[in-house]
């Protein structure tokens, strides 16, 4: 190694660089540990790991990819929100325009395929965790959080499915939400709904059951579009982020990645 420092080395030692990346360019063991500790993003990880935990064969990296897909979906989703208006007048035509006219309208493809991919990665992540028996104490609760995250992922995907407002969307959601009609007690065609009445007054009917609450109407219509949009863009992402935080936190708190003892 020549004595003369090249520009990158100098840059790496400059005060500005150091103020941002406190530990400097990680070269030594210490620096490497510090760079993980000091980074808000990397400190999700412990500094050191058991050897098997870095093997792809073991982790499949599925959890990481799921999280990454979540980020990709957030970014492309935000970009799409610039061009998309959740009203019956515009929703469909805005989607057409994404293909026909909007620069880099490919965002929609990335978003849609990314969403599909995320459902798959979540399942595979769960499968991996199960197959390695990693849900066992002390990680029982994190498994439960994981199941909730899986459920939320499906809901996110489902709510997004309606937004293009085409035949595929409206009928998939109609089929999906029709089942809610039959929710015991809460759906007007569900068993037990008839019991929730006083005298002749029926409290659970077509315009007051859980499906109505979900759609904002008896049918998939304008208010359903708005509800699904709000849930898809704000409601569910907000909730899923809370659970994600818990999930990641508990990975560390429950003793890091699982492994044989």
């Amino acid at each position, binding site marked *: 190694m020549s004595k003369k420092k090249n520009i990158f080395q100098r840059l790496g030692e400059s005060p500005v660089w150091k103020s941002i990346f406190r530990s400097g360019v990680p070269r030594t063991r210490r620096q490497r540990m510090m760079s993980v500790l000091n980074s808000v993003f990397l400190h999700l990880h412990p500094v050191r790991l058991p050897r098997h935990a870095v093997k792809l064969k073991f982790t499949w990296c599925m959890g990481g990819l799921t999280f990454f897909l979540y980020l990709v979906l957030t970014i492309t989703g935000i970009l799409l929100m610039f061009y998309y208006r959740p009203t*019956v007048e515009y929703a469909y035509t805005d989607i057409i325009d994404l293909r026909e006219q909007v620069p880099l309208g490919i965002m929609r493809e990335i978003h849609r395929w990314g969403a599909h991919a995320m459902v798959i990665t979540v399942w595979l992540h769960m499968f991996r965790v199960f197959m390695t028996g990693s849900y066992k104490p002390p990680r029982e609760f994190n498994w439960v959080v994981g199941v909730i995250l899986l459920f939320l992922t499906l809901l996110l995907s489902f709510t997004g499915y309606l937004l293009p407002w085409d035949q595929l969307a409206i009928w998939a959601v109609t089929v999906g939400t029709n089942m809610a009609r039959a929710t015991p007690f809460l759906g007007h065609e569900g068993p037990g709904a008839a019991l929730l009445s006083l005298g002749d007054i029926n409290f659970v009917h077509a315009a007051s059951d859980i499906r109505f609450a979900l759609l904002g109407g008896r049918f998939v219509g304008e208010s359903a579009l708005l509800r699904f949009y709000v849930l898809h863009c704000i409601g569910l992402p907000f909730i899923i982020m809370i659970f994600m935080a818990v999930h990641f936190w508990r990975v560390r708190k429950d003793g890091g990645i699982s492994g044989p003892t």
Partner: protein
Amino acid sequence: MDKQERHYNIFKLNRVFAISSILFLLLLIWTFADDYSRSWRTYQSEFREMEIVQTDSLLKLEEKMLNEMSEYQEALSLLKTVEESLTEKDEELERFEDELSSLDDDKYAASQEYISVKAEYDVAKYLYEEAVAKGHGDPEETGSKLERLEASLLQHRLKSEEAEQKYEDIEEQILGIKADKKAAQDQISRLRRKAEVLGKKLQKVDPDEMTFGNRLGNSIRDLPVLDFLAPYYKIDQIVIKDITEDLNFANVPKVDRCTTCHMGIATPGYEDAPQPHTTHPDLELYLLSESPHPKESFGCTSCHSGRGRGTDFTYSAHTPRNEEQAKEWEEKYGWHELHYWDTPMFPVQYTEAGCFKCHNQEIYLEGADKLSLGTNLIERAGCFGCHTIERYQDKRRIGPDLNRIASKVSKDWTYLWIRDPKAFRHNSWMPKFFELENNSSDEDVARTNQELHAIVHYLFNNSEDFSLNDVPRWGDVTRGEDLVNSLGCLGCHRIENEPTDEVTSLQSLRRDHGPNLVGVGAKTSREWIYNWLKEPKRFSPETTMPNLRLSNQEAADIAAYLMTLDGNGFKGQEVPSQNNLELDKIVLSFLLQMNSDYDSRIMLSGMEEKEKLDYTGEKLIRFYGCFGCHNISGFEDEKPIGIELTEVGIKHADKLDFGLLKIEHTKLAWFTQKLLHPRSFDKDKVKTAYEKLRMPNFDFDEAEVEALSTALLGFEKASYGVKPARSVNPDVHEGQWLVREFNCQGCHFVEGDGGAVRPTITDWLRSANGIDQETAEEVTADFSPPDLNSQGSKTQPDWLFEFFKKPFIIRPSLKARMPTFHFTDDEWNSIIKYFQFLDGQELAYESPHHVDITTSSYKAGEKLQELGECNKCHFYGTTFPSQTADTWAPNLALVKERLRPEWVSAWLDDPQSMMKGTKMPAPSIPTLEEVQDPDVLEFVGEDVAALAGNRSVLINGLTDYLYTIPGKIDISREVLGYFSKNGYNFLQPVEDEEGDEWDDEEW
């Protein structure tokens, strides 16, 4: 390296990372490239090249023309001389310019001072107002300050205005010196305007013509990523507020981006350019802002359908015209059918379907011949008898009335006729129900033979009595034939023994209005024909056959002639005998539809044969829907049996039953198959007899099917905000309907179309007068029912109304006879209003035309009439024209009752422009120049000479005179008397006394 705490070989990881990063980068670039590479960009740059070439050549041409234009050269030389003369005044001009610049400084300073004082003044004013109103401060002090400032303000204003005035004076002087130059320059730029526009355009599109800076900008403005700033190539879209697209939940304004690729569509000059740059084939009617369908308010897909927002070949839902084109497109554009779009573009041969979206009330749409043919075929074939179509609601049934059938035809004839109408009359419109694709098996035939017995039984059993009057005279066949050929019968009927190769058109359909008369003698009796001719409505109250006011003799003659048309009949065909076993089966299958098996059998065994026939006859007529086209007693209020077609144009292909047939699953393929082979969708299906398809076969040919499909494709209720005026005017609608329904165009021209009878008149003229074809053709128009062009502005509505009610002879030499139609007053009025609408006349009543016979113009008119020798051709009341019958023209005594003076004046001014080919010459109105000639002056006399040169006054005078011609108005009797004495064959050349061995007719 710290082996202890590492797992992977970092170099290996680096390599993997490098490769994947490069891969990612490449893909990212690919993503951008993919986003950038849009086919419309290529088309736009292609078009730009073409635009450059075209603009360049236009510019060169313009320059050349300018160089050849003397006016321009003069202007140029003028400019030159003016400029030369200006140099002499250079000194003076320079002095003025200097002065001007110093004055400019003064002016600026003065105005600045004024502005600052004004600001102070405004403040003072505010303070004073405050002081007075609210007591903040001393009103007196502020008041005096305000006064002081006001004075100063005035002073400054004066100063400033003075400076300005001075400046303007000098400016004016300079302008005065330069005035000539400016005038010359203005003239030049006026002449050069077009060239300048072209030059500017060229500078915009052609990089070679650009300045360096622009060229630089041009070369980077369309680069990927940078092109979001100010690109040259960009998507062009037309947003149409009035025309919406139905998204089921909402109607949104139409957005058409077609012009993104079809850039030359509305620019003349690219007619021969390849697609997509080609100019629209009919700019007069479409796209241009001065046309009736400007692109700004109609766009493209509102007519053509398709996906207007698409910017790529496939995604704009182009539809190929045939398999071949589909293949070609697949190769050329990677085209595939866009499944997920419900309104794909109409294939080019069905384009006219788009017209129907707005023009859906019109009976005939000029320019949309295929669509009109389609709707006309629907009307002629009577599709609406079985299929509800909103447009045709409450229309009369198109087939003959069967309520009195027994008096007209025999049972056997009826049986054979229903079984196969075309076997009797090759071009009958009665479709075939039996022995088609799904009922030709032996079993089916055995059943349908019995079905026919039941139907015939029902019809005759329920036929009302109808008394036939005896024919009072012996008819003459030759005279009858002449009458049929000349009265105008052939405007609606044909007499054709064999199929011809005539292509179906609107015109040919007019002659199909009534049945082909071939075989009529074999079908019915002389008595029936006689009675029918004398009063069609007695037999069939709803018939469209009018009353021709035939004398007994005439009716007898025609009946005698028609009886000779016994055609082929049903030679050799016999009615199969009744088979009770089969009949029982039919009865049972109908009984089973309503009853249990057990009950049915009991009911069957309890039925007499007649009962069975009654029962099945009724059921079968209901099953086949015969009442859709015919009046049959007992079925007056029956609902049509077919599927509603009002909106069939937007029906989804997957809602159509293709059965097990292996054809393309598209709407058009289905329409075509259904119309050509209506029962073929039953192929390979297992169905009971009365589950089968029952649409009859009309024997349409492919061209007819294409026209019908065009109309069907157009059937939709478009929610467009714009509606053509004639479509929404109820009177016009009704009038147009009546004209269509009663086939006025069989004889007359209405809206420039019709006169189907004319070729037969030619034939008649030739045969009856013994003249050659060429001559006969030349004079056909003179002996045919009149062209009703400009009828609305021509006749007085009151007169027309009376005439309709009680027609009489107007054109004396015409043999064709205006029949009496038994319309209601309202119906006649709507026809009149329709005529008026066509000529922009909306007036219902007019005061009579008063003529002052003392004016000089009246006298001049009288003289002109004399000079023009109108009496050579025109009747004056009962005064016959001086010339022979072949040039006779209407009675001028009728003018005052019949015509509108405005029309008469216009007509006299230029008859040819109102009615092309008319025999009426434009009267010669003497000009000022002509009356200088003493000879002429002598001829025309004082009154005319005094007004010579004042053409319109003279014409009005002539018009006025015409309104005072006395005499009998209805001269029918006189005219008929003349012809009965002299015969009609006046066109025949007079025989030479000397023998002629070389017969002219041979030529």
